[in-house]
């Protein structure tokens, strides 16, 4: 029971991280019909930016963890928002009329460039960095089951970000414009929507949500490395695909589903837990064969 509880908390935490990555893929696909393969590496850049900000705040004498956390979040979000918008402005929009595969390849290469740049140019970038524990380390005890405050805060934060995104997309003027652009770019322009601005804002938004996932990941495992975006990006993309690409709620569902598969692979299967990713990806492949358009295919009501 004790162990099961821990796995559930761990699964929820990972599911939230994956969902946050997956919604980015879905947002980008929604507004521009493109797959941006550098997304995982943008997440990694976000984690490193946050890490640098935390170290910088500590060096400047802000010893309180909350001050360091604030610096981490602000710089990670702002940095990735700028990076995401820049990628859209100077890489993806210029390639808009090129074949989709070219954009996929270009962003794949950009991701590699980002990854290698951090490895080569960040001080001692090829080694993992110890991400500071900035959240309270207290915990609650119920019989055998221990709930750590930091895990709870991370899960709640992630869920709040997802709810906030849902409200932004469905209840605000910006969200309406994003949905309009996703459905029909040209008519959206004719309504007086500044198309380029909406695309840049969407990429900034999706990228900073990925940074939230990157920082969460760093706080949870207390470690980041230059290659962390590779697997997280692939998992986020898989989650978006099995949920139904272009569908926000499908991406969220896909993220939690992938985490559940990993947990099942780690706990309930008769093989070693190291095979959990093999199991999860194998199930994803089977799911894609069974439902090629995703569990929640793009329906009347719900593109982005």
């Amino acid at each position, binding site marked *: 029971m004790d162990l099961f509880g821990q796995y559930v908390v761990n699964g929820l935490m990972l599911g939230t991280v994956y969902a946050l990555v997956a919604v980015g893929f879905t947002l980008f696909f929604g507004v521009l019909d493109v797959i941006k393969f550098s997304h995982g590496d943008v997440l990694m850049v976000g984690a490193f930016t946050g890490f640098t900000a935390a170290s910088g705040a500590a060096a400047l004498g802000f010893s309180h963890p909350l001050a360091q956390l604030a610096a981490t979040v602000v710089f990670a979000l702002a940095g990735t928002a700028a990076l995401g918008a820049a990628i859209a402005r100077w890489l993806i929009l210029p390639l808009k009329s090129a074949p989709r595969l070219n954009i996929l390849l270009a962003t794949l290469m950009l991701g590699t460039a980002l990854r290698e740049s951090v490895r080569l140019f960040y001080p001692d970038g090829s080694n993992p960095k110890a991400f500071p524990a900035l959240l309270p380390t207290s915990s609650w005890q119920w019989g055998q089951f221990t709930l750590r405050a930091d895990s709870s805060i991370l899960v709640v934060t992630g869920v709040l970000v997802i709810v906030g995104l849902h409200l932004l997309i469905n209840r605000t*003027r910006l969200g*309406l*414009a994003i*949905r*309009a652009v996703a*459905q*029909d770019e*040209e*008519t*959206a*322009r*004719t*309504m*007086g*929507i*500044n*198309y*380029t601005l909406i695309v840049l804002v969407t990429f900034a938004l999706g990228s900073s949500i990925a940074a939230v996932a990157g920082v969460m990941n760093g706080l949870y495992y207390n470690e980041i490395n230059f290659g962390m975006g590779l697997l997280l990006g692939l998992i986020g993309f898989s989650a978006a695909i099995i949920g139904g690409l272009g569908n926000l709620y499908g991406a969220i569902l896909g993220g939690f589903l992938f985490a559940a598969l990993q947990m099942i692979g780690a706990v309930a299967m008769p093989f070693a837990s190291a095979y959990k990713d093999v199991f999860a990806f194998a199930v994803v492949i089977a799911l894609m064969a069974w439902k090629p358009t995703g569990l929640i295919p793009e329906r*009347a*009501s*719900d*593109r982005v």
Partner: protein
Amino acid sequence: MDAAIEISGLHAAYDKADVLIDVSLTVAPGTITCLLGSNGAGKTTLIRAILGLTPPRAGSVKVFGAEVTGEATHRVIARGVACIPEGRRMFPKLTVAENLRLGAYQEPSEAEIKRRLAEVYDTFPRLAERRNQLAGTMSGGEQAMVSIGRGLMGKPRLLIVDEPSLGLSPLYVKENFRIIEGIRARGITVFLVEQNVHQTLAIADAGYVLSGGRVVAGGTAAELKSNAEFHAAYFG
């Protein structure tokens, strides 16, 4: 008073094919001015050039006296222009109310948007009943109402209407032309692009005929009706 639209020497092309050749025309404010022409004459390209969706190769487009050639579409719209596009172009997965709100996208005041919504619902009571329905699930005639309502939500000075009668039953076509006359009565200039010659000339003040990418005739509606060139272009 400046012309609502003043186009001079406009050339547009897709790849190598010329679509518009030296087009010049003027839409006087407060009028319904029509642009007649058969399929492939270049009518939709002309609208796209005005709206900045297809930048022209050469020539100039002025809207209310301001040069808009090469301007981004949202800036052209900001000058008081709205468009009811060909085929209605609903956002099928948005509700009727959301579609209408997009028509007033550049209006910052929520109170003003609500006032305009009420006005549209007043004109089309059917849309009020269906405000929360997805636009894609409505009939062609109802979508035409959404499209017209959406065009009016921007409170334009100039409304460009592209083939409003396309694909509609004769009853709705008649209703549409009546509504367009009503729009002029509210002081909005209408640039009406149509294939339906007789019904269009019945409500238009002036018009042009586009054939093979060139303006082959122009004048008042009465002149056009009796113009030999016009008949040649149309009935060949």
